[in-house]
């Protein structure tokens, strides 16, 4: 049995507290709370800002706490579909905000296949019940995202850490469908 205060410290590592305060990739898509909740009803059509790129957007919601994140991604039309831009808007706990931030740092500039590989590794990490990944290579590939290992011990919080990643996966699929 792990001492809980220790567990709390492991969950809220400095990287997480720091990233949650100044999250990377965060933008304001809507003016205020009510606007945001209203505007995210229904599927928004997004247009790529970069040339020769296609865009996709996904809205993710955590019904237990009301947290939400809208993720926008732009990928190059040319193979291997590089992620040219990854931004998001939303609100949530430090775990969800930090996870989104770390994800942006990790996958921007990678191609879609690489990002999906990281998605899978991160998903596995979050299912590890605090044990981490067996494969060192995969763990290394996750970079800062390994700090969420401590979160995986708390079933109620796994969804927080995965919120952004689920949005990444979904928005990538939508963007891929748009590529010319």
């Amino acid at each position, binding site marked *: *049995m792990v*001492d*809980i*205060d220790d*567990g*709390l410290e492991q*969950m*809220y590592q400095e990287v997480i*507290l720091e990233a949650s*305060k100044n999250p990377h990739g965060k933008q304001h898509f809507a003016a205020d*709370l*009510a606007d945001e909740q209203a505007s995210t009803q229904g599927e928004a059509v997004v247009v790529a800002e970069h040339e020769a790129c296609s865009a996709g957007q996904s809205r993710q919601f955590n019904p*237990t*706490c*009301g*947290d939400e994140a809208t993720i926008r991604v732009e990928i190059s039309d040319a193979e291997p579909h590089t992620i040219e831009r990854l931004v998001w808007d939303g*609100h*949530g*706990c*430090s*775990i969800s*905000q930090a996870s989104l931030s770390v994800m942006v740092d990790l996958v921007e500039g990678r191609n879609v296949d690489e990002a999906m590989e990281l998605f899978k590794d991160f998903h596995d990490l979050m299912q590890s019940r605090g044990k981490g990944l067996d494969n060192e290579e995969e763990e290394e590939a996750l970079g800062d995202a390994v700090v969420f290992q401590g979160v995986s011990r*708390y079933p109620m*919080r796994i969804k*927080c850490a995965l919120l952004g990643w689920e949005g990444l996966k979904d928005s990538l699929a939508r963007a891929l469908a748009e590529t010319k």
Partner: protein
Amino acid sequence: MTQTLEQIRQEFPILNVKVHGKPLVYLDSAATAQKPQCVIDAESEFYATINAGVHRGAHELAARSTLAFEEARAKVAELVGANAEEGSEELVVTAGATAGLNLLATSFGYASMGRGGKVAERFVLKPGDEIVVSKAEHHSVLLPFQELAARTGATLRWFDLDTEGRIRTDMADEVITERTKIVAITHISNVTGAITDVATVVKRAHEVGALVVLDACQSVPHIAIDFHALDVDFAAFSAHKMYGPTGVGFLYGKRELLEALPPATFGGSMVELAWMDKPADYMMPPARFEAGTQPVAQVVAAGVAAQWMREIGMDRIAQHEQEITKELLKINELDGVRVLGPLSTEQRIGTVSFEVEGVHPHDVGQYIDAQGIAIRVGHHCAQPAQRHFGVYASNRASCGIYTTVEDARAFVEAVGKVRAFFEV
């Protein structure tokens, strides 16, 4: 002999459970109350000694279980000021408050489609009619009545809240009009803990001939209730919030209204005569609304819970919880902490929602939980009320008869450390 608080606490086995190596401080009674041993025993005792179908069969056990079921209804009726004598019962067994409120909304909907005949015309809704709720409603009030409005073409209107989150009943004359047919409103908000001025609402509603549906989920466990005295037309509450089992609740209705109300679910034990080629004749209430096999063991245990509450005394429960409320409200003096709800113990119960500036409720809850203290985080199934305070979600501490002043102080101390932990 009057029990001491410590003796009452000893009746709750769960209070011996350790969480994260610390004694449990349970401050989530608004979500569900813990159960005393007598309630826990009542269910297994029922299965061990009298389990049988109720209101069907003629063998001895069936008679005993029917008796136990009806005795339980009577005990609950006595707690809340409803009739329970055979032929004048005013409590319908439901699967919970949500089920009770949905039963009503469904039934009003059927009446609006012409079911129930002439006597049910008083429940008919049509375009131009209005249903009034409040911004403080739990989703289990808001959504069934919002859906009912959508189905019938009626318009949904609502009471706004003041800065403390109290329902603006001073606006009753404007909000409730000649067009109002139904007013569905909470007795006590599960977010703010504020007690609604029901008398003003009832007076105005009855003035214009509207029916009042009361969500009594958060009031029945905490204050003395008399539905007859309140003069509400219907009321719903859940057993599990009043120290009883999960999966069962009660819908109160004035007898004459229940008799006029068409049934909402159909099946066994609610029909007198059924035919292939013509509509059935339905039984009188409450049977008319209790189709299918009922959660008998749970109802019996709910009766035990009601009696247990009466033995302690609702006034004593309310008085004790006032003391706790006073302690819980001290979080408002902490730096960066804001209580979402009334700041005095006046006309409120010990359900205290709050936000900690710069720290998301999920994170607050995690920190508090690590101290062995259970609070609720989230939107509490009342999103419009959250929005009223400009938040998506909040934290909530809520007490019960077993909550001690020490529990409340441990909670206040823990809240005081949250911002430092998260470095804000």
